[in-house]
């Protein structure tokens, strides 16, 4: 497993201070928006359900930082983090969660379907497994058109047990497609420990050989490790060498969704992973390697203000216009099914 132990370097290594600050900024911003989303739930300003990625920010930040703007990301219903990491506006995300006009999709998609194609976010998919074949298809399009675009597809450990996982991995490998499959193994398939419903220890990594792929298992809570792994897999895809399957070990601090207090998790396990919270760990690493705390504090303050502003903007945005119900079923903007 690739961990910080064998990747730890000084600030003047190939990642560099500037990128590291950006990686921290991205993680901190995601955490701040997710926490705000949680608060807004409690105030009943966000309805429906929501699947927070608090604790899993390093995977989103590390990959997004490794992608070119024209690359594509595909993620699951736990997709706020990946959407924000690619550069989607906080107001757009919070507005969508709150069902407001300013939402990324005008309120028509909701928390589980965040999409922002201007930032390469090709959708959040709420049926487990569906987006693996779809990301594979986008990669096929890049290969066919001869662009050097790469599709990156994020999914949870539970996805490795659904048929679409197998179908997508198989076809991506046969066709040598520029797609990177990233399993965020947070140890729980909804409410059930993944080990209880999976015949192998590492649900993605242990299956890579079935598709002729390398076994890649990394510490998904160390953004440096994620970033390095992402860069190498994306470079491989861009060079035409085919797909990768990466398993990043991580942990969600909250339950599966809004409705889940996550009482099924042993206290010691939660405590151990809380000590491995990617954000304070990385903050500490920045300070140890010479970044002044005032610099970090200023960045954090700036993000907090941005989240407050986004919250206010989303709160003051009206609900979507009623006409939206009948808009965009078809490409002509309408919904007519008869003449």
């Amino acid at each position, binding site marked *: 497993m690739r961990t910080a132990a064998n990747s730890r370097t000084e600030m003047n290594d190939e990642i560099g201070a500037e990128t590291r600050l950006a990686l921290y900024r991205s993680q901190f911003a995601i955490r701040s928006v997710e926490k705000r989303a949680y608060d807004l739930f409690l105030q009943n300003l966000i309805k429906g359900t929501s699947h927070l990625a608090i604790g899993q920010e390093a995977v989103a930040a590390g990959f997004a930082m490794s992608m070119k703007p024209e690359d594509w990301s595909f993620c699951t219903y736990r997709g706020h983090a990946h959407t924000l990491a690619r550069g989607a506006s906080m107001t757009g995300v919070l507005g969508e969660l709150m069902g407001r006009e300013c939402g990324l*999709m005008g309120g*028509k*998609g909701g928390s589980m379907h965040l999409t922002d194609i201007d930032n390469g976010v090709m959708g959040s998919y709420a049926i487990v497994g569906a987006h693996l074949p779809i990301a594979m298809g986008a990669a096929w*399009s890049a290969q066919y058109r001869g662009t050097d675009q790469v599709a990156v597809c994020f999914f949870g450990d539970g996805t490795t047990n659904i048929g*679409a996982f197998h179908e*997508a991995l*198989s076809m991506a490998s046969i066709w040598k497609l520029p797609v990177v499959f990233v399993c965020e193994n947070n140890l729980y398939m909804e409410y059930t420990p993944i080990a209880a419903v999976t015949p192998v220890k590492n649900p993605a990594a242990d299956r890579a050989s079935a598709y002729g792929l390398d076994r890649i298992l990394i510490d998904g809570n160390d953004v440096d490790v994620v970033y390095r792994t992402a860069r190498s897999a994306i470079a491989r895809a861009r060079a035409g060498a085919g797909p990768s399957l990466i398993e990043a070990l991580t942990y969600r601090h909250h339950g599966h969704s809004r409705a889940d207090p996550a009482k099924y998790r042993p206290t010691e396990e939660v405590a151990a992973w809380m000590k491995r919270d990617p954000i304070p760990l990385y903050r500490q690493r920045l300070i140890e390697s010479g970044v002044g705390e005032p610099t970090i504090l200023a960045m954090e303050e700036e993000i907090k203000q941005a989240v407050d502003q986004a919250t206010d903007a989303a709160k003051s945005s009206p609900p979507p216009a009623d006409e939206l119900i009948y808009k965009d079923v*078809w490409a002509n903007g309408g919904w007519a099914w008869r003449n």
Partner: protein
Amino acid sequence: MAELTYRDAVAAGIAQEMERDNSVVCLGEDIAAAGGVFKATVGLLEKFGPLRVRDTPIAEQAILGAAMGAAMTGLRPVAEIMFSDFLAVCWDMVANEIAKTRYMTNGQISLPLVIRTGNGGGSRFGAQHSQSVENWAMAIPGLKVVAPSTPADVKGLLAAAIRDPDPVVFFEHKALYATKGEVPDGEHVDTLGTAAIRRQGSDVTIAALGLMVPRALEAAERLQAEHRISATVIDVRSLVPLDTRTIFAEISKTGRFYTVEENPRLCGWGAEISSLVAEELFWDLDAPITRITTPHVPLPAADRLEDLTIPSAARIVETILKTID
């Protein structure tokens, strides 16, 4: 005009569009080297090469997922699902992903793709390779649904489906692949959402689809010759969008309306049309609407049983006579 088989018209329609537009690509099981299990894609691999005409594993979710991912990033894929029964294997892609993505993303994502599939009975394949499932697709907002009955329509409507900016499910009838018909020379592009009047009559109006169109026409000839009943036959061709204008105009002329549906009875496409007619055209009717459908059973395999299950020309004649007497 050249005479083509229904199956050759499929390849001709795809080839016409692949020639004019490099973004058109094909994928599916056995479609390339083997030319398709129904030989409907013969010659495409030789003409357009393996990058544009791709054989896939037996993996329907991957086929439709690939088509969707490719469509949202600039291609116009034509995906084959060998038997329409197999749509059940990848129904998530059809019903949840492809149909809803434009709407859910507030128009950010377009999916110009075609799902071609072999539909219908008459081949003694049994209940899992013979179904008429066009009504499944019709029930999902966001899908256009087409089912041609002639070689000319196959070519013209397939070309239109490929050019259409929305996802189209294209039901080819397996029992029609060997039939022949005149197909216009040169570029031929039809219009989605239009019905065709195949026979003009004055006593009854029959709406049919796919294989039921030639059977309705045969029934109409017998009604005329043996019973002096003059029937209009409408080939519905497109379930979504539905050409209610043409259908309603013909019903108004005769006052008697029949549907001939290969799908099992419950929630068949004719039920929707009948309900529209009852709501909007009631005062033009001289008699109750009658639906002639496959009974609500899975299809049996034995030739005798299958033939008795799917509506035949004889059953159409019989039903119409009974309701007119």
